[in-house]
């Protein structure tokens, strides 16, 4: 309120924004893949992230594994969960009206959160591994966030390599451009859906694993991430996978800068107004749509 914003402060929040933006981008890429390939908004994306966070928590506290080494394990576990979810429930609503998939994944979402409450209790848990900051001039760089940034960048890069270079990745992109054409080309669309859903869950899990080192975790931590991820893919352009990267960083920056000049309450308002404005003016997102 009564604080004059200096360039150093602006610099600090820009750093914070970019650091969290990379995480947003990675998590949102998962949602974007599902949306692109299956035309579904997976409301359970955030709760899957929560499960990833718990996987890391238990692996690192119970087995004493370095939390960053648990990231691939947590991803693998959630890949399996994602595949199971797709095979049992989600595939049934792929071609249904959007209400069906929204509600179905919402039902899955609250069930997952409740299961987590029953199994893990609502107590906060935290992985105290890397706290504090590296101080560089007037700026403080949170250690855990910088590491998360590096991980998120690397994993997102790997995901793009997979999408761009491998046969399976190309098949995923082809399916997201046109399912009919993909089928004609002999792509097993069912299998693509399965892999996509698993991959998306793994990306969410990676986000959860990294977040577990940054903030304390609890069963309800995930829901907010579904909405944020959707914001990101709208900003970047749905179906445009590199757009998620831009969208993520942008959302991180918007949130932080708006919180700095206004209040944290109002930063939500800013993000939403922007969402609607972009949808109306440029429905294909800032980078334009569907050029994968």
């Amino acid at each position, binding site marked *: 309120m009564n604080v004059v914003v200096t360039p150093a402060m602006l610099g600090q929040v820009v750093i914070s924004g970019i650091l969290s933006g990379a995480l947003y981008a990675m998590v949102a890429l998962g949602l974007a893949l599902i*949306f692109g390939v299956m035309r579904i*908004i997976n409301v359970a994306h955030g709760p899957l992230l929560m499960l990833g966070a718990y996987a890391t928590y238990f692996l690192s506290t119970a087995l004493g594994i370095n939390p960053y080494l648990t990231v691939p394990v947590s991803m693998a576990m959630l890949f399996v969960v994602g595949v199971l979810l797709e095979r049992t*429930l989600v595939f*049934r*609503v792929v071609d*249904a*009206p*959007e*209400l*069906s998939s*929204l*509600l*179905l994944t*919402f*039902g*899955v*979402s*609250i*069930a*997952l*959160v*409740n*299961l987590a*409450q*029953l199994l893990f209790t609502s107590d906060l848990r935290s992985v105290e591994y890397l706290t504090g900051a590296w101080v560089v001039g007037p700026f403080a760089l949170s250690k855990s966030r910088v590491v998360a940034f590096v991980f998120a960048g690397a994993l997102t890069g790997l995901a793009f390599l997979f999408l761009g270079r491998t046969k399976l990745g190309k098949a995923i992109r082809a399916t997201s451009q046109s399912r009919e054409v993909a089928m004609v080309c002999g792509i097993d669309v069912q299998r693509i859906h399965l892999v996509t859903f698993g991959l998306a869950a793994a990306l969410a899990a990676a986000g959860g694993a990294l977040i577990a080192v940054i903030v304390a975790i609890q069963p309800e931590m995930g829901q907010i991430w579904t*909405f944020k991820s*959707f914001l990101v893919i*709208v900003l970047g352009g749905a179906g445009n996978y590199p757009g998620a990267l831009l969208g993520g960083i942008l959302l991180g920056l918007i949130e932080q800068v708006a919180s700095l000049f206004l*209040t944290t*309450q*109002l930063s*939500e*308002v800013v993000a*939403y*107004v922007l*969402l*609607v404005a972009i*949808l*109306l003016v440029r*429905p294909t997102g800032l980078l334009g749509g569907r050029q994968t």
Partner: protein
Amino acid sequence: MSQRVALAAPVAVALALAAYPVVASGYEVRATLQIFMWIVLAGSWNLISGLTGYVSFGHVAFFGAGAYAGAILISKAGWPWLAAALVGGGAAVLLALVIGYPCLRLKGPYFAIAMLGLNEVLRALVSYFEGLTGGGNGLSLPTLDATVPIYYVMGLTAVAVTVLTYLIITSRFGLRLMTIREDEVAAEAMGIDTARHKLYAFLLSAAGPGIAGALTARDQGYIEPISVFPLATTITMIVMVLFGGKGTVWGPVLGAVVLFVAQEVVWARYPYVHPLLFGALIVAVVLLMPRGVLGILQVRYRLPRTI
């Protein structure tokens, strides 16, 4: 089944409900009042989403807007609650006008998420303008025991929403809305002014929740941002409509009654697994009976479209 019975049954039920507060306990009145509220909410959601196919994922926003408009008029301006409730409905319609004009141009999931965001934004704005709304402190209304009169007004609102649904479904306006639901491009090609039709349906769907919100605020005597804008309320109204049968007249009524009673009688005994049960129910409804109870009956027994 003659037409006379079809008409007589609802009238008999309405008369019974009108006499109910005389014999019922305080809790029974309040529980029935809640059922009325859910009929208003579910029926209103049905008007926009059941008929046009535009999924409003933030319909509780209109409930919250009505609650705040009503509560502010009652507590700050000393209005009688009935007038405040009507203005609450008006405020919700106004909000729908401002929001609907841009947002109804969005298609499919984009509209759903924009509505979800609207709800979050309203909550943030209400918290922010604390001079008027009390912010996070909420608003406390003067003490007044008006549960029974509110029961009647909420009941009348539920009847009004249901009759409105019937009138729309049997009208040309309703037919056009359903054409939009089936194929919006085709509807436009047929010369239907889709933007205007969607907007009208949207405005009508906002009035009921607005009135219900203001009545609820008065009855509870206290509101706060978190408790009048919960996503769970939107989801519950959607599931009620889906369960009963979307796009039908009686579907929302059926869904509201069955689900509320189930919630109150069965689920309240298992508080720790309540969300799990609700999640399972949602999944079951979506997968096993997407047309709802009435939808299934319509197909099986060739019932009229206007049930």
